[in-house]
C-alpha cells in the first residue's frame, strides 16, 4: 500500500490506526491542544490524500465506512464528553475518504473538513466549561441542565445538531456529498452511510438526554455569560451559512 495512503489513514483515522488518535486525543488534558488536534488532524490527512494524486482503492473506502460505523455505533454508550468528541471525530472524518471522490476542489474539501471539526471544537469548549463547574463532563451525572443553564443548553443542543449532520450544517453537506458518491458505487456503501447517520443521530439524542433532560438536582449553577452565548451562536450561524454555501457547491 502507498505509504502516503497509510499516513492518511492515521490522520483520517481508519481502524485500527484510529485507536492511536483516540489514545492521543484523550491523553491531552488541556482544551487548547485538543482544539489544535481537532482542527489540524483532518487537514493533514486531506493534504496527504491529495499528495497521492490517485483515488484510494475501493477496500480503503469500505474500511473507512466500516470504521465510521464502528465508532458511531460505539459512541452510543459513551457518556464522557471527551470520549464522545474523539469517537465522533473519527466517525465523521473517515467520511472524507468518500467525499474526496465527489469534490474535486481541494480548498472546498478542506473547508468541509473544517466545518466538521468546528462543532467538535465547540463541544470541547463546552465540555471544559462543565469540567470547571462540576469537575467532570459526564452525561447522567447531573441532569436537568435545560432549566439550570438555559443559555449553555441552547448552545449545547445546536452544537450536537451540527455534529450529527443536521441540515444545514456542514456535516449535512459532507453526508450529502458522501451519499451521492456512494450511489455511484454499490448499494452496500449507501446502506452503510444510512446506518452511520442513524448512529450519529442516536448518539446525539442520548447525549442531549443525558445532559439537558430531567429535574435539576443542583442548587446554584452559573450559566455561561450572555456574551459567550452570543459568540457561540455567531459561530454556529456562520457554520450554518457555510453549510448552505457548500450545499450550493454540490449542485
Amino acid at each position, binding site marked *: 500500500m502507498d505509504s502516503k495512503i497509510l499516513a492518511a489513514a492515521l490522520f483520517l483515522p481508519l481502524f485500527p490506526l484510529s485507536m492511536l488518535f*483516540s489514545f492521543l486525543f484523550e491523553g491531552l488534558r488541556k482544551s487548547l491542544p485538543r482544539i489544535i488536534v481537532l482542527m489540524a488532524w483532518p487537514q493533514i490527512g486531506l493534504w496527504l490524500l491529495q499528495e497521492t494524486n490517485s483515488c484510494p482503492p475501493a477496500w480503503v473506502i469500505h474500511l473507512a465506512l466500516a470504521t465510521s460505523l464502528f465508532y458511531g455505533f460505539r459512541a452510543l454508550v459513551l457518556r464522557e464528553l471527551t470520549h464522545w468528541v474523539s469517537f465522533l471525530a473519527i466517525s465523521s472524518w473517515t467520511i472524507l475518504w468518500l467525499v474526496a471522490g465527489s469534490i474535486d476542489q481541494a480548498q472546498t474539501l478542506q473547508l468541509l473538513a473544517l466545518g466538521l471539526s468546528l462543532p467538535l471544537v465547540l463541544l470541547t469548549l463546552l465540555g471544559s466549561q462543565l469540567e470547571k463547574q462540576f469537575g467532570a463532563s459526564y452525561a447522567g451525572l447531573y441532569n436537568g441542565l435545560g432549566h439550570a443553564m438555559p443559555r449553555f443548553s441552547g448552545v449545547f443542543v445546536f452544537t450536537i445538531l451540527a455534529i450529527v449532520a443536521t441540515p444545514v450544517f456542514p456535516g449535512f453537506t459532507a453526508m450529502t456529498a458522501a451519499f451521492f458518491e456512494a450511489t455511484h458505487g454499490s448499494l452496500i456503501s449507501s446502506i452503510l452511510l*444510512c446506518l452511520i447517520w442513524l448512529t450519529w443521530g442516536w448518539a446525539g439524542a442520548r447525549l442531549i438526554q443525558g445532559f*439537558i433532560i430531567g429535574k435539576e438536582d443542583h442548587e446554584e449553577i452559573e450559566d455561561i455569560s450572555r456574551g459567550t452565548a452570543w459568540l457561540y451562536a455567531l459561530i454556529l450561524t456562520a457554520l450554518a451559512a457555510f453549510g448552505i454555501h457548500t450545499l450550493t457547491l454540490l449542485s
Partner: protein
Amino acid sequence: MEQLFLLLPLLPILVALINQLFAKQLGRSVAKISVRASFVSFIIAVILLGDQLAGSPVTNVHLGNGIGILLSDPLSCLMAVLITGISLIVRIYSVKYMAEEDGYGRFFILLDLMVAALLLMGSAGDLLTMVVSWHLVGVVLYFLIGFNLRSALSSRHAFWTLITYRIGDLAMMLAAGILFHTFGTWSLSEIFAEIRSAPGVHKYGGFTVEEITGALVAVAAFARSAQFLLHTWLPYSMGGPTPVSALMHVGIVNAGGFLINRFAPIFAQTEAALHVIFFVGLITAIIGSVLMLTQNDIKKALGYSTMGQMGFMVMECGVGAFSLAIYHLIAHGFFKGTLFLSAGSAISKARKHDGVPKQDLYTFAVERKTAVRRQPWLVMALITIAVPIAIIFIAHWLVAKDFYQKQGAIILLFFGWVTGAQLLFTTYRMNTQNFPRMIGTILVSFTVLIAGYTLIGHAFDHFLYPDEVFRKQIYSTATIDVVWFDLVLILTTLVIVAGWIFTYYSEQNRLRDNKERCNNLWLSFYALISREFYLMDIYSWMARSLLQLAARINVLLRWR
C-alpha cells in the same frame, strides 16, 4: 405572486428569529407576534390557492444560486392552506393553553420553525430542499414532543419519534442520491419530465430507477405516516403538549400521503411499488383500528385512530386514488385536530360529570345492553348487504360512468360498502324505540358522506391532476391481473357476508355451544392487542441489546 410564494416559508422563520433575538424584551408578546404572522401566512396561502384555482400555470420559484426551488402548483398551494390554517388554530389555542408552562417563548419559536419546515416541504421543487425540509420536520418535532425538559418520559418518546423519522429521512436521502446520480439534476420538474419522456430506461442495482426510488420514497412516507412496523412512535408521542399532538396529527403525520403525491410521476412508472403501498396501508388500517378499540387512554386511542386513518390514506395511494388521499388527509386533519384540541376539556368536564345522556346509544355502546326483541335477521342481512352498495354505486355513477373500470375505485367502493354495512349490522342489536327512524338516519348520513366524498374526491382529482392521460396512467399502474383481482374480491366478499349471516343467525337463535372456547380465543387475542403485538417490547429489547454490544466492544478495546 412569486414573491408571495417565497414569503410563505420565510415569514415564520423571520418571526422565530425575531422572537428568539428579542425574547427578553418581548416577554409573552411572542405569542401575539406568532399568531398575527400566522394569520398573514394563512391569507397569503389562500390568495395563492385562489390563483391556482383561477388557472395559473405551475411555476418554479428559485430561492438562490443553484439550489432551493419552490414549486408553485395546486398541490403545494393546497398544502400551504392546510398547514397555515391548522397552525393558526393551534397557535391561537396555545396562547392560553401554554400560559402556565415554562418555556412559553421557546414553544412559539419551535412552532414557527415547524411551520416553516412544513411549508418548505410542501413547496419543495428540488431534491435538496425536499431532503432538508423533510429532515428538519423530524428534528423540530423531536424538540416539540420533548418540550417538557423535566420529563424523561417525554424525552424518551421524542427520541423514538426521531429515530423512526430518521429511518424515513435516510430512505429519502438514498432516493435523492439515486435520482441525482441518474438524471444529473436536483430539479423535480426536470426529473419528472425525463421520466415521462423515457420511462424505465435507467437502471440501478438491477431495478429500474423508478421502481427503486419509488420504494425508497414509500419507506420515507411509511415512517412519517406511522405505517405498520414504523408506527410505534405515534401513540406514545402524546407526552408533548396537546397543541403539539394536534399539529402532529393534523399536519405532520399526513406528510406521507403528500410525499407519494409529490412523486406521483415516479409512481406512475412503477410495477410493484403501488401494490406494496396498498398492502402496507391495508395492514396499517386494520391494525390501527383494532388497537384503537382496545385503548382506555383517550389520547392513545386517538393516536391509534390516526394510525388507522393513515393506513387508509396510504391504501388510497396504493389503488391509484392519489388525489383522494390528499382530500382524506385534509378531512382527517380537521376532524382529528378538533378532537385533540377538545380532548383536554372533555376529560376535565367528564371528571365532574360525564354529561352523556343515558339514551339508547349509551346503553348499547357503553353499558353493552342489546335489544331483547330483534328485527327479522334475514331482512336485516339483506338491508346490510344491498343498501350500502346501491348508495355507493349510484353516487359514483353520477360522477363518472366509467368509474367501475378502475380497480382502485372498486376497492374503495368495497371498503365503503363494508363500513356502511358494518354500521347497519351493529345497530341491528341496538335497543331503540323507533327503529325505522334510526335506520333512516343512518342511511341518510351514509348517503351524504358517500356523495360528499365522491364529489369532492372527483373535484380534487381534476384540480391536482388536470392531465387525464396521467390520471388514467396512475390508475392503470395500480391495477393487478383481472382474474386474481376478481378472485380475491369475490372470496373476501363471501367471507365477510358469510360472517355477517352466521352472526345474525346465531344471535337470533341464541347459539352458545362453543361460548367457552370462543372466550379463551378472545382473551388470547385481547392479550395480544393489549400488548400492542409486543412490538414496543421487541424494539426496546433490540435497542438494549445493541447498547450492550456497543458497551462490550468498548470495554474490549479499552475505550479506544
